[in-house]
């Protein structure tokens, strides 16, 4: 299929159109500097959406990503308070490991106990938030308690883009490689597209779903550190309700909720679309009472576009008969 007709192309066109519309009301929005900052701001959403993509591909859903982000972020912040001199690289490693471990809990429950993923992750979502409360006693960890290197790392600017943005790009490239070039990546598509066929080809469906949750968890953990460092504050309700934005980004990006269909580029563009809407609303001077309705409508329109683009035309198997009519 040519790129021009693909979902990704339509979404890209929608994003350009959106930017054009915003520029008519607030021209400074499309300066390179501002676009770079919008991209950086969208990075956590993009990272989470890429993790969510893998999970949705396998016909599951992970509602605990935002809670995982908050819990891992809180733990990173607490470690930073206890050991301010810990290298940032190690903090990121801890975040990835811990996030993966939390994701593995989801994965194991789905795989070994065969509980529906939506139930499992709703449960762990609440549990993770509860654990943050237990750990932090409801107290905040604030900017002045965190070390300068901890909060400064994602903000450093390299070639006009923050380190956070580069990390997002690296994650997207790694995921693209994983999905396109590894047996594991292909197995996610196979398992979600047709689980029965996947079993006949020797794939373990449960194991693939487990690994999808681990990947999603690890990325949520990474985003947890980035989030806490970016906003320089950690408390129980960090990123409350963010899991729904992540799912929305995936759906806009053309990931089929029924599993098996989707692409890394689509997910990245879906996250960008939402990120641009979120960043533009405060500056285009629209009443705050309208903002929620507008951002909801934008999601619906994007999804409707996608659904139309993705609709199969039906296959004409008897060309000669058709012409005969």
């Amino acid at each position, binding site marked *: 299929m040519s790129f021009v007709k693909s979902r990704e192309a339509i979404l890209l066109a929608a994003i350009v159109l959106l930017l054009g519309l915003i520029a008519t009301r*607030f021209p*400074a*929005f499309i300066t390179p500097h*501002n676009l770079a*900052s919008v991209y950086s*701001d969208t990075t956590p959403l993009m990272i989470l959406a890429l993790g969510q993509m893998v999970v949705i591909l396998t016909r599951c859903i992970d509602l605990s990503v935002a809670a995982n982000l908050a819990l891992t972020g809180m733990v990173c912040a607490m470690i930073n308070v206890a050991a301010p001199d810990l290298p940032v690289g190690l903090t990121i490693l801890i975040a990835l490991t811990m996030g993966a471990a939390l994701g593995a809990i989801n994965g194991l429950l789905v795989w070994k106990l065969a509980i529906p993923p939506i139930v499992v992750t709703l449960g762990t979502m609440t549990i993770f938030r509860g654990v943050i409360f237990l750990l932090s006693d409801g107290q*905040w960890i*604030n*900017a*002045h*308690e965190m070390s300068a290197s901890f909060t400064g790392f994602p*903000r450093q600017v390299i070639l006009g883009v923050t380190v956070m943005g580069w990390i997002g790009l690296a994650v997207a490239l790694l995921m693209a490689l994983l999905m396109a070039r590894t047996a594991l990546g292909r197995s996610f598509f196979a398992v979600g597209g047709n689980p029965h066929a996947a079993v006949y080809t020797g794939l373990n469906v449960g194991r693939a779903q487990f690994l999808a949750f681990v990947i999603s968890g690890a990325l949520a953990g990474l985003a947890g550190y980035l*989030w806490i460092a970016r*906003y*320089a*504050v950690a408390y129980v*309700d*960090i*990123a*409350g*309700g963010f899991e729904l934005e992540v799912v929305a980004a995936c759906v806009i990006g053309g990931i089929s909720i029924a599993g098996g269909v989707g692409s890394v580029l689509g997910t990245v563009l879906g996250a960008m679309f939402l990120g641009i809407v*979120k*960043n533009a*609303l*405060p*500056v285009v*001077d629209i009443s*705050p*009472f309208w903002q929620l309705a507008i951002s909801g409508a934008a999601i619906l329109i994007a999804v409707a576009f996608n659904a139309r683009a993705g609709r199969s035309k039906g296959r004409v198997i008897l060309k000669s008969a058709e012409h005969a009519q």
Partner: protein
Amino acid sequence: MKLAKLLTSAAVAAGLFAGPAAAEDMRIALVVKALGIGFFEAAAKGAEEAASELGDVEIIYTGPTDTTAEGQIEVINALIAQQVDAIAVSANDTDALVPTLKKAMQRGITVISWDSGVAEDGRQAHLNPSSNALIGNMIVKLAADELPEGGDVAVLSATTTSTNQNIWIEEMTKVLPNYPGINVVGTVYGDDLADKSYREAQGLMQSYPDLDAIIAPTSVGIVAAAQAVVDAGKVGQVNVTGLGLPSEMAGAIESGASKSFAIWNPIDLGYSATMMAYHLAKGDVEAAPGAEIEIGRMGSVTLDETGSAAMADPFVYDETNIDEFKSIF
């Protein structure tokens, strides 16, 4: 013989106790939501200050170990048994404490609530740390004080439906004419989410390049706005102010993103609650609507029709006192 001895010692004991009884210390119990919370430890400090000022007052600082109404009921029952003269309570539940506090009042104990109130029949008077009108005035005053020439300010609130914030903003708008030159350019809503508040603050700085101050009457918003100002490199250009907690705002004061902000002062609150309980227990003043009660260095308060009073303007925190308070609450 033994009996006589016992009687004598009893008499001696009675004599011993009778001596100071003429000028017996009034015992005021300060019951807090839970022990070990910095805010209440500071309130206790204020209560002690009031006690030493009054001279004939003994403060019993107590409370449960966790913030439950059951725990407070136990504590209050023990205080009734000890026959204290007054109980000043910051309640964990508006209604649950009422029966126990009623019992205390029947025994002649003066009962007031402060900070977090109890229902009207459970206390004689209630002391609010401040009032909506005072808060509304304070948040714009903080911005105006840094802008002698006037300037553009914007409000970053919580959600569009947050009752407290909406009332404060309304009160602020009422007193705005008293601050000539201060121009409120807009109100945005960060929904008390750190990331949305941050983005809204960023948006304000982009939409209004000449913005001089952001007023955030919410503790999440003020911290996020301060961070956004630092990240935008606009420290010194845009002043973030409003309501926040010293422990959360210490970084923003240090970076200069916020010159000052306000919130109640727990020391003053403990002090005033003690003063109020003292005068009511002493019978200096009857707890009735319209009654004016002296609260020492804080001036005086007047009870409204619900028996509530507002202590004072929110207390202003800036670089001169932030270090003292950031470890308290």
